[in-house]
């Protein structure tokens, strides 16, 4: 946030990973800044800062959004899920386990965003095809894996969830 501009506050009540919060955000504050700097949830990452790369992806009311360009004030009354909300009591989700099995993580910077968009896909489509997985991933850039292991992990997880 440019320090030179004066910002008034806006009250935001939202639920993040099943916990209710009420906080004061700056008027132009992004949801990503709120999550990372006010709530300590550093899973979502800032890379491009322009909504182009998907590293900051979180789910708002079940749909994937680029939290780096979403106004925190617009999320009032909404439910947000971050990668921290996936593994319940320490147990990885089926998708996360597939990522481990398929070595779908290298540097890991894109992983929280990729997991969230694929989580949304698996919740909406019971057994997505490889083409649907690739389509869902179109907004997430990974510079390490070439996407192949990510796609294989997602397809594998989809099968496991469906069976």
């Amino acid at each position, binding site marked *: 946030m440019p320090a030179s501009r004066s910002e008034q506050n806006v009250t935001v009540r939202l639920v993040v990973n099943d916990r209710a919060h009420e906080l004061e955000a700056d*008027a*132009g504050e992004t949801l990503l800044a709120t999550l990372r700097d006010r709530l300590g949830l550093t899973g979502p990452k800032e890379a491009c800062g322009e*909504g182009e790369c*998907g590293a900051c992806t979180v789910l708002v009311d079940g*749909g*994937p959004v680029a939290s780096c360009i979403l106004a925190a004030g*617009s999320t009032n009354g909404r439910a947000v899920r971050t990668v921290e909300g996936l593994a319940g009591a320490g147990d990885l989700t089926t998708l996360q386990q597939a990522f481990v099995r398929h070595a779908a993580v290298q540097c890991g910077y894109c992983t929280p965003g990729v997991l969230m968009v694929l989580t949304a896909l698996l919740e909406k489509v019971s057994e997505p095809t490889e083409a649907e997985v690739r389509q869902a991933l*179109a907004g997430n850039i990974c510079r390490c894996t070439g996407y192949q292991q990510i796609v294989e992990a997602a397809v594998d997880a989809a099968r496991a969830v469906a069976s």
Partner: protein
Amino acid sequence: MRFCRVRSVAEAVDELSRWGTEGRILAGGTDVMPQYLRGEQSPAVLIDISGIDGLGGISDVGGVTSIGALVTMRRLATASLIALRHPALSQAAAAVGAWQTQTVATLGGNICTAAATADTLPALLIADAQLTLVSKSGRRRIGLEDFLAGSGATALRPTELLRAVELEPLGERSSEGYLKVARRSAMDLAVVGLALRLDVAPSGVIDGVRIAMCGGDQSAHRVSAAESALLGTRLSDDPGAFGEVGAVLADAVGSAALPEAQYRRRVLPGLFDRLARRCAGEIAGAGA
């Protein structure tokens, strides 16, 4: 800067009237927020309309499709009524950014931001889109083509809010679609985009043509010269007519257009050919 959350259209137009040019409407924010974060926009207040009930509906009003300004790209891309009655719009919405963009980006935002390359605009133009604008002093209706006034410029007054868009659905012996050329197949702006609606008489003669383009000039627009070139030709026996129309479309790329006008002229005939064959095939396949 302030953040002002409004809950109704009445509250929204009150705030717009209070702030005038100092206020900026925030819906999905996929254009407004990056502009603000880059320091290109410094409004005194962001007027957040995303929580207004009643602007997020898709309905049939006496045979006309009415779409609320807050309907998202994702909804347009997945709604069965839109796929059935406005396939070009469905395809255009699916071509905007990626899923993350489509979750929050709204139809009203795409219209009012009025980018020269906005994907939904050609699809709306071939459905003769009529916009309803509201302000404290009342409402007015305006056709989309008259509303668009150059790249990023529209006839929207600072005190007005776009409330809904009305569209003329596809006819029975009709087909339509949207295709774009971009550097990447997703998460990219159109270099140029085309929407086509074809109506075909039982005799096989094309008796209705609407063609609209984005990226070919400062605003998306209908291309009447190309429409005339196709009107009255037969659907099946003269694919050569498509080549002629492609050449007319290439000529329609404005000299004052965006960079790469030459490239746009070059790709337009091929883009039109693909789109026209697809639409013609759909009509033929439907037993025309």
